[in-house]
């Protein structure tokens, strides 16, 4: 049975085990399926279901592990220990959290829009799990090799904005709607430099498919596109409500932002979606900028290991950033997006386009660009690093005064002796 899963190693194995026969595709040769002829649909169903189960559970388990890791690392940054009570190194702590959330009462406010309120965790989790479909986890291991995978990831990832706004609107709580409004304002601003930063990668790889991007990375694109990687990292951490940009759930200002009214397992699902979103972002960062499953040795055999290492590195970077930086004000965040990230994204895009035009010479007869070789990538890396340093310095100087000064305040009490109003 033909399907878009045909290149997936796991799908091939399971499908051929159940339904491999002579009438099947050529890649099942040498295997006799245990199901009789005419039951290929069952093998297809079992294979697809298994992959879905592995992916969904892997994402949620990864989210649980990430919660544990984040709490441990944040603890160590604060010179604490983090959770260490249950299990070795407190590894079973997420399970304890989950059990606690499961037995909590699931409250719905009286004035809430019940249907939308209930739909929010589903939409959030759905947008996350959909975005996992295009990520190649190892050699020939992915759910779908879309030819617009990068665009698909960005589009599906911004679905969570809708979920956040649904939560804020349906809760009937002023803090929830505050958080949701902040979130929408911020996420739409950050979407622009985020997408622009990915265009450079797409230009060099010549394809939007994640698999092609990985294959094109003779040099990790974080060297070839340092500016793009930086902008993507910052933009995606804004999109994931991570700490320097977490004004939408700023607990010191608005209680918990858009999920103020959520409790029980709904809250747990929202948290799981947020945490797994970090993992998905790390996976995309690892795939687009650090070579995905390709490693120095045993790329095709140990692809999953290389991929996990790179993913862990970026997840650590996210935690590190969260443990370091304080929350920004809304005007600082907006200024950062529009005055700093967006010009840098344009500079990155322009320079990459010019470089690709000169290095991958346009082949008029074949109507396509030539392949960019490894040496040409190194030259591009050198040029782009220089451009990155110059651009960051320049735009830092331009935007510094606006971003770092405090709003002008009237100094009512200028000297200790005089008080205004007493004359």
């Amino acid at each position: 049975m033909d399907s878009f899963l045909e290149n997936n190693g796991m799908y091939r194995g399971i499908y051929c085990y159940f339904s491999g026969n002579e009438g099947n595709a050529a890649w099942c040769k040498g295997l006799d399926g245990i199901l009789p002829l005419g039951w290929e649909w069952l093998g297809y169903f079992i294979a697809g279901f298994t992959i879905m189960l592995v992916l969904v559970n892997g994402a949620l388990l990864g989210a649980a592990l990430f919660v544990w890791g984040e709490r441990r690392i944040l603890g160590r940054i604060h010179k604490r220990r983090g959770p260490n009570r249950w299990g070795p190194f407190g590894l079973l702590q997420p399970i304890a959290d989950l059990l606690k959330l499961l037995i909590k009462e699931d409250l719905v406010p009286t004035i809430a829009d019940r249907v939308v309120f209930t739909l929010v965790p589903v939409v959030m989790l759905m947008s996350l799990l959909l975005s996992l479909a295009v990520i190649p986890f190892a050699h020939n291991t992915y759910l779908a090799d879309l030819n617009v995978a990068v665009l698909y990831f960005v589009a599906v990832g911004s679905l969570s904005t809708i979920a956040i706004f649904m939560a804020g609107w349906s809760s009937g709580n002023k803090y929830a709607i505050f958080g949701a409004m902040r979130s929408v304002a911020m996420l739409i601003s950050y979407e622009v430099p985020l997408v622009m930063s990915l265009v450079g990668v797409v230009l060099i790889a010549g394809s939007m498919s994640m698999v092609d991007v990985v294959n094109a990375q003779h040099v990790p694109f974080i060297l070839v596109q340092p500016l793009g990687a930086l902008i993507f990292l910052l933009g995606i951490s804004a999109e994931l409500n991570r700490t320097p940009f977490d004004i939408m759930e700023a607990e010191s200002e608005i209680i918990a932002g858009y999920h103020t009214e959520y409790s029980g397992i709904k809250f747990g699902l929202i948290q799981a979606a947020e945490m797994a979103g970090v993992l998905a972002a790390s996976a995309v960062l690892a795939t687009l900028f650090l070579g995905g499953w390709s490693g120095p040795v045993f790329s095709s055999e140990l692809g999953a290991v290389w991929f996990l290492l790179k993913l862990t590195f970026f997840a650590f970077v996210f935690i590190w950033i969260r443990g370091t930086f304080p929350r920004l004000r809304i005007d600082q965040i907006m200024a950062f997006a529009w005055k700093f990230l967006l010009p840098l994204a344009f500079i990155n895009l322009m320079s990459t386009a010019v470089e690709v035009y000169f290095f991958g010479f346009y082949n008029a007869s074949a109507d396509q660009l030539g392949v960019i070789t490894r040496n040409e990538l190194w030259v591009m890396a050198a040029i782009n690093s220089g451009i990155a340093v110059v651009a960051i310095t320049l735009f830092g100087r331009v935007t510094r005064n606006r971003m770092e000064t405090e709003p002008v305040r009237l100094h009512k009490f200028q000297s200790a002796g005089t008080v205004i109003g007493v004359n």
Partner: protein
Amino acid sequence: MYGRGLIKGLFVTLKNLVRPPFTVQYPEERLTQHPRFRGQEFAWYEERCTGCASCAKYCPLGIIRIVTEPSTTSVEQGGKYNIETFDIDIGRCMFCGLCVEACPYDALFMGSGFERGKYRRKDLLISVDELRTAAKRPSTWFRPQLERNGYDPHAGVPISWKDVGRENWEWRQEDKAGSRFYKTNTDQQNKVVENSAEEIP
């Protein structure tokens, strides 16, 4: 350069990440307390106590309750009263130690423990039976003779009423030698007293 502070902050957190944590995992690890730590579980030596109730009078919170009766048998030191009741309500105690300072016979000592969490308030009351039977690990607070003997309550060895000693009378004399209202027997201190007496017309 713009962003230098951000990078500096990242390295500060990275440095803290590789440093060992300074939290103490309490039930497994314990910090050692100072010997002068004013803890709960007061150490009370009945053999020393005369039932004068100075501690009860000095207590700013009035949480020490003493009931005595005339003694018929001879007790080794003091021996004026039998103690019927000696209750300390440490639920309201602020561990100021004034009762220990007030005790003229060195019969009451601060305790050295701090793990007396109870489920009911009435369990926080230390009764006379508990004071009699408890293993006595007195704090060296306001009892310099214990410290001079090198006693450490946190070493875990209880100490009997014969070993805790009395506050050294000579030591107190040295302390008060500067006062011309306080006359002593030693020569050196007599000199001091005489000199100061001459200066005053």
